[in-house]
């Protein structure tokens, strides 16, 4: 654990200037990923930590059919928001299915988007092969024991999972990420925010060094749409997903007219199941439709011995959440 300089930022512009001007500087928010990797695992070695927890980015506001959530809102605070419960209840379900009450009081929404993988080879600084930690060194997980790893968006260079629960409904909802840098700001859809590992697993998203997430904008579901989040895991609580699914359906006279579906526990990035959505829209709300959607979502998995079970488990997770949300079991 190397010494670092601790700096407390007073406003977003100052924070962005501090990190942008120093390639060895990193942001510190809730700390549940950053301090774990800096202090405990020794995987990250910043020379300067810029504490952004005092920045005035804690508001939740509603503008028409969009919920604007500033980056330092905690998971607990967002889960307690009445508009979330009313208009995007599966966001609340996903939040409360993640981590523990203590961690949810600490972890921020911006930080949740940027949480690092739980891949044990990435988090073990003594493991020699990890393309995410040391580009070009190989992937120990592809050859060694693996289980809590990705099967979608994965490949021979990396099977590290993006373990967020929250991001699963967020990606299904076409959430937008607002980003600030030294020159101004830009917005990126969450579906385009993450970068598949490909040959450069160390590049995880579109952020440039020093760019700061200031806010996310969550489109609310149309009235009448039902949603749900299902998380399958080894323990009933306080455990990462083996598979999970977030679904929102609008059904009229037995026909699915609106469908959003995303998967967790299986992707190198929070996984939007667009092919499955396409199949669902316009189709009758039946088990047969749900099974076809599940098949489409898991059409081209990349598995190793330890993760092969996830293909069938993810399909069943999809069918179950579609049954639960639609109320149809036929």
């Amino acid at each position: 654990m190397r010494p670092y300089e601790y700096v407390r930022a007073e406003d977003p512009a100052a924070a962005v200037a501090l990190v942008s001007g120093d390639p060895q500087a990193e942001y510190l928010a809730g700390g549940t990923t950053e301090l774990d990797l800096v202090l405990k695992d020794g995987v990250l070695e910043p020379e300067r930590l810029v504490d952004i927890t005092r920045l005035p980015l804690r508001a939740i506001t509603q503008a028409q059919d969009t919920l604007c959530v500033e980056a330092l809102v905690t998971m607990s605070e967002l889960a307690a928001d009445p508009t979330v419960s009313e208009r995007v209840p599966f966001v609340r379900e996903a939040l409360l299915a993640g981590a523990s009450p203590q961690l949810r009081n600490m972890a921020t929404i911006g930080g949740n988007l940027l949480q690092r993988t739980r891949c044990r080879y990435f988090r073990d600084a003594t493991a020699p092969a990890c393309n995410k930690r040391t580009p070009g060194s190989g992937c120990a997980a592809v050859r060694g024991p693996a289980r809590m790893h990705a099967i979608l968006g994965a490949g021979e260079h990396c099977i590290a999972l993006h373990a967020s629960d929250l991001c699963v409904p967020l990606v299904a909802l076409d959430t937008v990420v607002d980003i600030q840098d030294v020159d101004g700001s830009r917005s990126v859809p969450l579906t385009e925010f993450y970068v598949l590992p490909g040959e450069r697993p160390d590049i995880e998203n579109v952020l440039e060094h020093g760019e700061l997430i200031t806010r996310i904008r969550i489109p609310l579901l149309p009235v009448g749409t039902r949603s749900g989040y299902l998380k399958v895991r080894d323990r009933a609580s306080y455990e990462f997903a083996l598979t999970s699914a977030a679904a929102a359906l609008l059904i009229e006279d037995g026909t699915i007219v609106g469908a959003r579906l995303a998967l967790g526990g299986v992707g190198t990035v929070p996984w939007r199941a667009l092919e499955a959505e396409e199949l669902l829209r316009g189709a009758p709300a039946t088990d047969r439709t749900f099974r076809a959607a599940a098949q489409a979502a898991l059409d081209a998995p990349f598995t190793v011995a330890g993760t092969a079970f996830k293909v069938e488990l993810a399909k069943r997770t999809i069918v179950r959440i579609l049954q639960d949300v639609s109320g149809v079991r036929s």
Partner: protein
Amino acid sequence: MENIVSADTDVDVMLRVNGRARRLRLDSRVTLLDALRDELELTGTKKGCDQGACGACTVLLDGKRVLSCLTLAAQCEGREVTTIEGLAADGRLHPVQEAFIRHDAFQCGYCTPGQIVSAVALLQEGRAGSDEEIREFMSGNLCRCGAYPNIVAAIREVAGQGSE
């Protein structure tokens, strides 16, 4: 050479711990947990996994339960920290502490300070509606002795007193 800390990696911090202002000069890497235990000699808060997994280090920060092992002391400047030592008032144990004794809600006792602080927060959050809810919202506190049934019973009892 890496262990030599230069002056600019030290930080001055003022914490309000159990109602008392405490001024410290610390290496910026010192966690709230280590500051409490090693600098302030408040050893009631326990270091279990020291990696955010077990809940033994749970304290209240501005009234909310957090893990002190994943919080920098420097981040707590000016904030209110409540530890297990701060729960008893006027020489009387907190009702949750009394209930833990009455229900024998521990064996080795190592996780107990974290369990009790977490339970106090759970009751404030209104999450003691059923045994199932208590279990879910205590899931961040592990007990390797397996005292869970008695922990749930103790919390349920205090929740019942509150509503009567």
